[in-house]
């Protein structure tokens, strides 16, 4: 009797647990469906809604040399920013692994705090620093390096600088965590076997930390492709990116099908990188860095 009772209560409990799990998951799911999946679905329908035929918008974007150049420029910009970030992030991540105590905390906060600060505020700070009468130009003129102010704003230089500044932490953290996993005994073994420091680095340390380098690089690349605020504020007319082109289609030229198609091409590029990088990339860690 007791046995059967326990069994029935057991089964009701599991079915109640299933309902409970569904109840916990459903609100977020409904929200994402209604504010993310359905809007993107509508955007996809829009991209196929050109009067000239379903694929006409995509054909126009790919066929036009002007639009193609914007996409190529965006990719070149994203790739250069990624290379700069990876090169600068590696020694920084390495320094993080070597610091202890107070200085480690200081260094960590240098990487962590920028994550929290508004991209808009950071970009505005750069505009104030780089402008003709800004402190950097004053310093350069005061120290006699130049006699007239240098144009550092609204050109390639300011776009690269601003984007590298925002994206560097995304490269530093994956590299740092892959460096933490390196077994120091391997380095000692390499040196014990007579390898020079450079050889140990190139043959042991670099290969072991390569997953972190690739993950960091992939994060930066896929975020850089969709950048909007920094290039819009810091760039000149020649620094048109795909995101700015989409904005232009929506707000200036009012051509929704082109805007929708351009965003799906951009998304295709991002997903392509994600697929290539999926081996060593965990999306949770992109969010978990903060």
């Amino acid at each position, binding site marked *: 009797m007791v046995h059967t009772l326990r069994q029935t209560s057991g089964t009701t409990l599991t079915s109640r647990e299933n309902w409970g*799990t*569904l109840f*916990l*998951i459903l*609100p*977020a*799911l409904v*929200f*994402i469906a209604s*504010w*993310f999946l*359905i*809007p*993107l679905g*509508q*955007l996809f329908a*829009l991209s196929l809604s050109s009067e000239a035929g379903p694929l006409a918008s995509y054909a126009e974007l790919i066929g036009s040399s002007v639009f193609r150049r914007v996409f190529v420029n965006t990719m070149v910009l994203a790739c250069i920013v990624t290379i700069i970030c990876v090169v600068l992030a590696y*020694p*920084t991540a390495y*320094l993080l692994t070597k610091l202890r105590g107070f200085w480690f*905390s200081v*260094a960590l906060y*240098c*990487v*962590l*705090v*920028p994550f*929290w*600060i*508004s991209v*808009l*505020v950071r970009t*505005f*700070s750069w*505009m*104030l*620093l780089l402008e003709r009468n*800004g*402190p950097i130009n004053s310093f350069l003129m005061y120290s006699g390096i130049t006699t007239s102010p240098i144009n550092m704003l609204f050109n390639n230089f300011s776009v690269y600088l601003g984007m590298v500044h925002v994206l*560097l*932490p995304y490269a530093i953290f994956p590299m740092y965590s892959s460096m933490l996993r390196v077994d120091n005994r391997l380095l000692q073994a390499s040196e014990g076997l007579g390898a020079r*420091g450079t050889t140990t680095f190139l043959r042991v340390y670099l290969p072991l930390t390569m997953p972190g380098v690739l993950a960091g690089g992939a994060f930066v690349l896929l975020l850089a492709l*969709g950048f909007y*605020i920094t290039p819009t*504020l810091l760039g000149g007319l020649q620094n048109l990116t795909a*995101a700015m082109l*989409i904005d232009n289609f*929506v707000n200036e030229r009012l051509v*929704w099908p082109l805007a*929708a198609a351009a*965003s799906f091409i*951009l998304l295709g590029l*991002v*997903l392509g990188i*994600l697929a290539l990088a999926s081996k060593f990339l965990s999306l*949770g860690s*992109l*969010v978990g*860095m*903060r």
Partner: protein
Amino acid sequence: MNSSLVKTISHIVGALVLAFLLLPIFAVVPASLSDQSFVKIPPESYSFRWYEAFFADAGWVSSMLNSIKVATIACIFTVIVGTMIAVGLTRVGATTRMLLTGLLMAPIIVPAIMISIAIYYVSRQVGLYGTVLGLALGHSLLCLPFVVINVGVSLRRLDPSLLRAAAGLGASGWQVFRTVTLPAIKPGLAGGAAFAFVTSFDEVIVSIFISGYGAKTLPVKLWEQIRVEFTPVSAAGSTIILVLTVILFVAVQMLRFRAAPGKEAQV
């Protein structure tokens, strides 16, 4: 090549990069404290007159209030919904968990401009364009992943036998959550909530597209101003955002430190 020399150079590069990351952020602070009507770093004389001007301007003040409203709604909404699904994810199979996590993280990967125009298009159909609620829902999409991840990390540290013990002693699902789960995930919850608030408070791109005239937020107002000219009032607005973010950041770090002393610096 001398490897210790290479090491020294790499340490110097690293230190310079760290300084490069942190220091330029604060350029808006001296700019906002200028006594003159133009931006100069460092200012020739200091005053708070641009903060007075900020708070005397109905446009700036209402945009700040809008930002606070939107961020509060987005924060509360994502904390509730995000905690629910984070707990739900511990109760499903590995495949379902992976699929759902991927879906939750997707808004971080999809370019913000694309999400913005999609929500812009839909919000006009359903009458949420230019409303606080519309903005809060748009921002929630970007805040939710941070809540789920932060709470999820805390949940994984929770000993499942405690949950079984509580349930075995006859506690209901809600009682187990309130007395066992909730106290254990408090640090993750606070971190997620703070980051959700900041993410919404700072959000620019979605806001530019859907705030309209009715729900202009502080970053949108700032964005419009910066594109025209650099003024000390804009610098004051930026500094207000900066100070608010730093306060929340410090609060979260202290809470994490109290939850796990000595581990405050964990990433």
